[in-house]
């Protein structure tokens, strides 16, 4: 357990370092941006005096390092600044959307795992069969096609052809989850294809391992070998794959949210970029990064706890 604690401290340290690096890159990038927030907020016709007043109020007249420290200090206390466009506190803007993004992410992680694993088992047991070939080909095609193209195809089927779901998703309104269906399917398909491909490969490898042959020679049924010998071993690989998947999925989720105009962090990010709303971009980018890194640390920790082989070795992966 001491080994795990040591690992956990180190892993969380690296995660914190990652988020900090993102905050530095994002802050520097925003500093270099030629957009003047005062003009964005007050319009091009605004007087010089009004702009100076605005800059003073938003602390834009202070040196960059001071502003970085204030900003990062505020973020740590949950004060994310105010939007330049509508003057609303960013905290309120983000909170609702973070909720939507998290709902989409969690449902998708669960569904994609539940969908991909049984299929991977089926495919791994019958290599070369029609089912395996068509599943594998489907997974390759889904991974190759850009996420927004796939999401649009699902939008076409679900909202234009069978007209069961809204073309523009407003999130979850009054407990109506129908707007969630198409975005979830899109994210799930992409994620499931990824999990399927990795899980299939490692299951095929495992089924060819000597201990599987040994168990079969001892007369255990195929079913028993699969459930009692192979799958417990494979579960570790699977958690690992799900962890890897979480990062890729969040990138895809930014896109899927935009295709369906689902009101999550991804749409807020693109919207604030198009509006030149600098403080919102900064905050959303850093919070999204923190969200992803957190999911990843949790998944990595689960892998550690599940796998006795890694748990015992003190070193890295």
């Amino acid at each position, binding site marked *: 357990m001491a080994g795990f604690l040591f690992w956990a401290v180190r892993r969380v340290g690296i995660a914190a370092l990652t988020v900090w690096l993102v905050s530095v890159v*994002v802050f520097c990038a925003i500093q*270099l941006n030629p957009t003047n927030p005062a003009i964005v907020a007050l319009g091009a016709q605004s007087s010089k005096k009004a702009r100076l007043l605005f800059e003073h109020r938003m602390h834009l007249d202070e040196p960059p390092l001071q502003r970085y420290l204030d900003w990062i200090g505020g973020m740590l206390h949950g004060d994310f600044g105010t939007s330049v466009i509508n003057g609303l506190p960013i905290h309120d803007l983000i909170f609702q959307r973070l909720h939507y993004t998290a709902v989409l992410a969690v449902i998708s992680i669960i569904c994609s795992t539940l969908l991909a694993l049984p299929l991977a088992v089926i495919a791994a047991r019958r290599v070369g069969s029609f089912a395996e070939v068509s599943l594998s080909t489907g997974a390759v095609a889904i991974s190759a096609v*850009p996420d927004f193209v796939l999401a649009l195809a699902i939008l076409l089927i679900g909202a234009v052809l069978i007209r069961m779901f809204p073309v523009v998703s407003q999130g979850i309104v009054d407990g109506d989850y129908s707007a969630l269906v198409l975005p979830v399917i899109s994210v799930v398909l992409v994620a499931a294809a990824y999990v399927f491909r990795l899980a299939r490969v490692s299951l095929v490898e495992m089924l060819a391992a000597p201990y599987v042959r040994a168990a079969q020679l001892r007369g255990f049924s195929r079913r028993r070998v699969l459930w009692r010998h192979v799958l417990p071993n494979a579960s570790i690989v699977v958690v690992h794959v799900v962890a890897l998947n979480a990062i890729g999925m969040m990138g895809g989720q930014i896109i899927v949210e935009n295709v369906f105009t689902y009101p999550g962090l991804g749409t807020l990010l693109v919207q604030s970029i198009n509006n030149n709303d600098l403080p919102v971009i900064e905050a959303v980018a850093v919070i999204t990064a923190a969200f992803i890194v957190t999911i*990843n640390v949790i998944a990595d920790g689960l892998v550690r706890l599940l796998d006795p082989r890694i748990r015992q070795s003190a070193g890295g992966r």
Partner: protein
Amino acid sequence: MGGRFGSPLVVLWHGSHGRVGTVLVTVMLLMILFGPAVAPFPPNAIVSDILQGPSREHLLGTDVLGRDVLSRLLNGGRSILILPILAVAIAFVIGTTLGLLAGLKGGLTDVMITGAAEVALSIPALLMVLVLVFTFGHSDFVLVVSTGIFVSPRSIRIIRGAAHAVCSQDYVTAARARGEGDVAIVFREILPNVTGPLLAEFALRLTYAIGFISTLSFLGLGQQPPSSDWGLMVSDGRPYFTQAPLLVIVPALGIAALAIGINLIADEITSHLARNVQPTSN
């Protein structure tokens, strides 16, 4: 590639994935290269009423400004192919340099380079590139360079791994014993022996970069109007999805065909390499 790899076309024609991929990519390449020459109208000319369905005069209909969709499609393929190729080339230059450095030098250099790649991989590239493109503007140069930078960590890992595996082979030890320097070893011993995996990786990354750059255009942060870039065409058509789904479907199919074709080719190269692996002691 020479003898060891066999003629590339023979390799690609070996399996069904390779065949379908080669046909798809060839068709798309012909379309992208010669499309502008055979397009019936200029891509930005307003030639008809808006949002017309397919007709004899406009085979794929017209868009929201009354421009011919077929002509725009035939003219808009270049950015979807050339920009990703340049981006992956940049990623490979970065990846090869740092990956070989890490694989050859080992020690602290290795730890620092792999550590940096690891950190970069834990953040979605899209997030960072969106911020960079926002700051430095959506010129082709910025798109290509920032995409290249954020695709490179994966290449660093692959190339480091390949270099590492090759470094422990007897022929590298022999070359070292002959007194050859690092540069000679890299160019004469290591690179020729990792061509296959690098080629497969290049094709895979190219698929990814095509998706990535067309996504940026779709989000309004890549190619700008009035360009008929396919990603941008999809984005332009999105508000009229219910009335005129063809506006979205046509360019989306173009992107999908290109991406799937290249991915299938990568698949075929990978399985060719897997078939031809010589069993080694390590």
